[in-house]
């Protein structure tokens, strides 16, 4: 039997990044993936005959530079060209849309000169402030219990970065840090369409409305990501998100990683407080020095390890991780490309956002607090087949949209709720792209309940845990255990549930692998 230094549970992008990084450092690594294909929520899959789509994650905006460099992803087929940066289009029912071009609105069109000036200033400020937080993402969170000299120095650098902002900016940074996004936008902007777009982006993927305290953090998190060296830039990977996975997989395999798909893990074997291996669903037992779980932290601890092998306080913390998804994913197979009113051909390749105003986003959020979906949902629409014709038959088109808000625990249940929600979404789409309903060949709506079932994401939450202030940094996945280790010696967490969090970044996987290497694990 071949023995491995590390077994990675979960072949999502973070698992593959961790595997490749460890393998590059000389470890013998095995990746176990439950599904038939690697990639997790970043897969590109068939959803109708001849139609393919990026299943959950569809926009690339934060794949970490260190991941690209460490794994040499560009050598393995990853393409990140500035020309692929996609605009963000704030759709409008009255008049032409407002468009943010380049890397998150280097140029703003469709608004007044005074608003353009205001945006330029706000954008610069947002990027400055996000820049202070950015270094945290590529590092293990500070260990409050016993900080090493290196960690203290790194924290000192952040203090220095703060100081470099200057007195006024530093005060303002601290003032706005935990603000709600709506209030900040009202301070600086006038155009409700622009404010609606930013309010949507700040709350995308979280159980927050624009007026919920701390909602601005979501925007910082977004802008702390970069693509092709440009902060806030976003693109549709050619061939779908699966192409990114293919590049990471190629890097992993080149480094010598063994990948076994359709191999679900049943248990993590713990002996004398130490993780020593895994038992597969098939009953097969595999042993390794380090067990790295790149799946959900709650699943890892409560199901695979089991509460008996860890302390009560830790179980309490893990059970308290909030992870009820509030976003649905819509896939439409269309017989022809849709025409969004007032949007030109180039912008159809962009990110088309239905979020007419912060009020509209807030109103869409309100019912979700009480277990109901938004009657007028907000959404981020992409048409990936326009740039990647391989995704749809000739002349046809794929629409991929993230739709909010769709509470995981829908009061009436998704069985009856789903068709009603789809109807509400189609009504919204019809408003912005008249005639689209008639071109639908096939519609697939993934509610959080579906996402949970299909992608093994408890609560159907893409981030494997709400990405809010109380579940970030030293508190992710739980306080006291944010450094990728767990109370079970030899067991590490490397998924989106760990710091810095979700999105196709690879950062949790990379950070975890670096930690294991540093610990000589």
């Amino acid at each position, binding site marked *: 039997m071949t023995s491995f230094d590390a077994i990675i549970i979960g072949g999502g992008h973070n698992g593959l990044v961790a595997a490749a990084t460890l393998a590059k450092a000389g470890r013998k690594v095995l990746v176990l993936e439950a599904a038939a294909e690697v990639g997790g929520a970043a897969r590109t899959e068939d959803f109708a005959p001849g139609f393919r789509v990026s299943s959950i994650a569809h926009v690339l905006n934060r794949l970490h530079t260190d991941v690209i460099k460490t794994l040499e992803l560009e050598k393995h087929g990853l393409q990140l060209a500035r020309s692929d940066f996609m605009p963000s289009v704030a759709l409008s029912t009255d008049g032409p849309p407002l468009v943010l071009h380049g890397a998150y609105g280097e140029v703003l069109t469709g608004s007044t000169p005074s608003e353009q000036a205001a945006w330029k200033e706000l954008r610069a400020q947002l990027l400055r402030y996000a820049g202070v937080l950015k270094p945290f993402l590529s590092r293990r969170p500070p260990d409050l219990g016993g900080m090493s000299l290196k960690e203290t120095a790194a924290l000192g650098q952040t203090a220095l970065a703060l100081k470099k902002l200057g007195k006024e900016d530093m005060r303002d940074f601290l003032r706005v840090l935990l603000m709600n996004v709506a209030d900040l936008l009202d301070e600086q902007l006038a155009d409700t369409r622009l404010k609606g777009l930013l309010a949507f982006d700040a709350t995308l993927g979280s159980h927050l409305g624009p007026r919920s305290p701390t909602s601005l953090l979501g925007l910082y998190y977004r802008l702390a990501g970069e693509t092709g060296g440009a902060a806030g830039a976003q693109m549709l990977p050619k061939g779908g998100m699966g192409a990114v996975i293919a590049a990471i997989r190629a890097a992993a395999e080149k480094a010598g990683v063994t990948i076994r798909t359709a191999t679900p893990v049943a248990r993590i074997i713990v002996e004398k407080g130490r993780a020593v291996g895994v038992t597969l669903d098939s009953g097969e037992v595999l042993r390794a020095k380090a067990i790295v779980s790149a799946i959900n932290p709650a699943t890892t601890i409560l199901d695979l390890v089991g509460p008996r*092998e860890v302390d*009560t306080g830790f*179980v309490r913390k893990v059970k308290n991780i909030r992870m009820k998804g509030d976003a649905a994913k819509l896939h439409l197979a269309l017989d022809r490309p849709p025409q969004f009113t007032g949007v030109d051909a180039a912008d159809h390749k962009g990110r088309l956002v239905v979020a007419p105003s912060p009020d509209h986003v807030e109103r869409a959020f309100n019912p979700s607090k009480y277990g109901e979906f938004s009657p007028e949902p907000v959404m981020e629409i992409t048409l990936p087949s326009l740039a990647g014709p391989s995704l749809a038959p000739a002349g046809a088109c794929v629409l991929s949209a993230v739709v909010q808000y769709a509470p995981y625990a829908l009061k009436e249940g998704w069985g009856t709720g789903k068709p009603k929600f789809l109807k509400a979404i189609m009504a919204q789409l019809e408003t912005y792209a008249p005639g689209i309903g008639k071109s639908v060949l096939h519609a697939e709506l993934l509610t959080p309940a579906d996402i949970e079932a299909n992608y093994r994401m408890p609560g159907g939450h893409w981030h494997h845990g709400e990405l809010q202030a109380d579940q970030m940094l030293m508190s992710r996945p739980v306080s006291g255990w944010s450094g990728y280790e767990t109370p079970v*010696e030899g067991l590490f967490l490397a998924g989106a549930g760990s710091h810095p969090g979700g999105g196709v970044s690879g950062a949790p996987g990379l950070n975890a692998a670096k930690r294991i290497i540093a610990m000589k694990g």
Partner: protein
Amino acid sequence: MAQATHKKPSAAKTNSIALARTAAQSHFRTLRLGTPFQPRLDALARTQDWYNWAGYRAPHSLWDEELEYFAIRSQAGLFDISPMTKYRIEGPDAEAFLDRVTLRDVTKLKPGRVHYTAWCDDEGFVLDDGTLFRLSSTHLRLCSQERHLPWLLDSAIGFEVTIEEETEAVAGLALQGPTSFAVLRDAGFAGVDKLKVFDLAEFPHDGGTVTISRTGFTGDLGYELFVPAEKALSLWDRLMTAGELRGIRAIGYTALNRARLEAGLIVANADFTTAEHAIRADRLRMPDEIGLGFMIDLAKGHFNGRRAIVEARAKRKLRYVLVGLEIEGNIPAEHAIVYHKKHQEVGLVSAAIWSPMAKRNIAIASLARPYGDTMVEDLWVEIYAMRELQYQKLMKRAKVVARPFIKLDRRTANPPADF
């Protein structure tokens, strides 16, 4: 019509909720609850010297604390332990559950046995100590000083076990002293002579059963009896009647406290601060820091605090030690500061008496390591003796000695002696 019929039950329900609320409203008028034995205690309470034990009215003394103490050592003292927190833990995983929660190996605790144990939080700090009664393979009773239901329920995640607090439902008595066995035998508990130390068994009583264990908190021959609350008074009367010629006396806590100190036993939140009560970070204690290290069983499976305890031992992070002291003279050193070389503060006495049995001035103290651990020479206590409104400061030499301070053969003798 349909509406009318719908309304009626809901109106009745509202009414019953209102009634229940009204009934509960005056709860604050009873500042301290009575135990099931309260009518008997009240009748005997000549000193009216009460204290608050976990919300119950419990006697410090009933008639004379000196004579109550001597009842324990030369007759039989009857002490109401009903306020002690009790949990009924039942289910196929009860053993595995308790093995994970507590320090000792519960798989070694056979049905019909009792052991003294303790339990810790994730950081290895002691949440409480208590006794675990194994009534059957799947039914156990955990008795403790503090309340722990949320902790126990959260600890039960992943175990097939039910946990119920039964403090109110189950009344308890401790019958302690040389004649305690004879009292029970004379009361008609046939077969009670078979009980060895830490054994328990059920005996018929008043149409039901009473659980009797040969356990106690005095270091003496003694028993503890647990009975459904509604059978409490008949049990009391049965014992008092049988014990009349054996010198049975109801006693209060002051007497018991002396006896337990002689036996070298510690009391949670008197000799150490339990983890959930401690506000100051340096008040938390690991088992090794309060003399409970012997309970830790690293050979068994995972238990709460294991990782932290192993790490603290390996990295020598244990900061305190609990010791028995023998102090020169005869003035009790209660809450005296302990010094090294008469000037460096190294700890505090948490309990102290002149021991009538040991004929020694004894104390339990917590010291900062290495004092009391590897450095045991030249220790002193500073006693403030009040002499007619003036403190007389006494610096007395203290010697670290083994606990218990007294060892009575009758405690463990089999069969128990008939006095």
